[in-house]
């Protein structure tokens, strides 16, 4: 496996998502054997009609942590406190909505309302079997009917779902002038998540060493210049909106080539805070 990888996701073609009927996707990474992955999902307008035959559906995952950051559009989704809660709470994912879903949280779709214009969502998880059409779903995902459901001896959990702009920016813990917004802490093998805002003309001598675990970033807005130093030498990149970068040890992320960003950047950071 290369020690780092850049994906200009805007240049990657969409494909039919094999694990979720009706979705399209761009895969950023898939781990073997855990099945953990990160994908850009595209939800079509009116999603649900062809998939659910206008019936509601809901399920929970036994072990996998799911996280997502919505990039655009609208995607109505429902959260259920437990099987007895058959109404659920409607949450419309829009640009800037972040979701931290632990295992055992019950979620699904009601027939109405449906997505008006579709949605694009960056989604990542700690294992396979969360998509209903994934062959591993039979072990990982439990569909819970709306009536005549069995009694589950399970402590159902709740996700944290919020618009990130409802949370204040705080001073970055290590780089003066930068800002950060912690979105989720580490949860098992799910690394911590933060948004980091770099100001225009930012500079930094910080380096972010790779670890055995994947560290990655996704440019939400703006652009940034980075360098990756690894066994093959130094590689420089101009990352722009919707670009993805992952790196592992021995690769090291560096910024020491002058100005990092002309007009700043907001970067989704997984397993690090760009420092």
């Amino acid at each position, binding site marked *: 496996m290369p020690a780092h990888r850049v994906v200009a996701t805007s240049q990657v073609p969409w494909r039919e998502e094999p694990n979720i009927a009706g979705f399209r996707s761009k895969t950023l990474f898939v781990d073997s054997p855990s099945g953990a992955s990160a994908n850009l999902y595209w939800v079509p307008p009116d999603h649900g009609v062809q998939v659910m035959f206008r019936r509601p559906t809901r399920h929970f995952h036994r072990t996998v942590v799911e996280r997502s950051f919505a990039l655009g559009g609208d995607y109505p989704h429902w959260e259920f406190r437990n099987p007895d809660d058959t109404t659920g709470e409607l949450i419309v994912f829009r640009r800037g909505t972040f979701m931290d879903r632990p295992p055992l949280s019950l979620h699904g779709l009601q027939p109405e309302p449906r997505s*008006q214009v579709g949605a694009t969502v960056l989604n990542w998880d700690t294992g396979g079997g969360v998509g209903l059409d994934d062959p591993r779903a039979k072990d990982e995902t439990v569909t819970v009917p709306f009536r005549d459901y069995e009694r589950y001896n399970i402590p159902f959990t709740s996700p944290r779902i919020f618009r990130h702009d409802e949370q204040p920016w705080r001073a970055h813990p290590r780089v003066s002038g930068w800002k950060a917004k912690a979105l989720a802490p580490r949860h098992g093998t799910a690394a911590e998540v933060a948004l980091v805002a770099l100001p*225009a003309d930012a500079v930094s001598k910080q380096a972010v060493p790779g670890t055995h675990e994947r560290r990655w970033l996704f440019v939400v*807005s703006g652009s940034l210049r980075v360098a990756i130093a690894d066994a093959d030498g130094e590689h420089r990149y101009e990352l722009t909106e919707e670009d993805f970068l992952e790196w592992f040890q021995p690769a090291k992320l560096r910024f020491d080539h002058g100005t990092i960003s002309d007009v700043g950047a907001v970067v989704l950071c997984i397993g690090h805070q760009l420092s």
Partner: protein
Amino acid sequence: MEAFRHLDTTTMPWAPEPTIKGMKSKVLFRDPESGAVTIIRSVPPGYGVGDQPFRHYHTSVVERSFYLAGDFPHWEFDGPEDKTGDLIMFRRGLFMDRPPNTIHGLFPHPKSEIGGMAISWNTGGGVGVDDPNYEVESIDVPFENPGRFNVAFTSPRIFMHDTLPWNPHPRVKGWKIKPLAPRRGVAPEVALVHVTADWQPARSGAVVEPTDERRWMFVVSGGLDVVVSQGARQDAIALKEHGYLEWRAPAVIGFAAGAVSDIGATVLCVGHVLG
């Protein structure tokens, strides 16, 4: 008419676009006299023209657009004899300045994969094929036997804004600017302005003086706090990403004392350069 209007466009409902069947829209502004609109349009995936290509031009209206998401294949033609045209894929960050008398249209393939979304504005009605004034303003150009047009056909300027450099703002130190289009008739000049993170005004008060012409801005990324003043009345407005603000005399735009943007903002400015 109110002297200013603020819209959080992300939470506005979508409605069918009355002048282009199949699209959805959020109308931000409509001038009942001229038919000019400022509008966010959503193009559905697979949007197209059936089996036959289609093209037309507008005789007097200037159209401008800034793409926010998705993909929308569009074709530009040098003149009626140009039957193949140039395919241009509209994507996030693409700006279009279309003067009158430019021939543009659609071929059956390729179609939009995931749909597209743009903020668009124009100087009059009759540009949408289902607009009641379409036949007054727009002329279809057949591909076979197009006939003779006594028209000086023109070309639009269509480019990804990130292919242009940022320049220092002419009036505010530290800010940056990227002029996108000059004034053309009643279509005011267009620019992207970047307000730097934690920027503070030297003094509170107006930065954009009043005019009788509508001026507006749309936050492409980041957030920006402004103050709209009308005499003794002052309204503090926190513009979020995809927030829209329009104003005209007697309203003036300014800033309160203190930092006006946590992480900076990139703002589409029409009729002004903010500072």
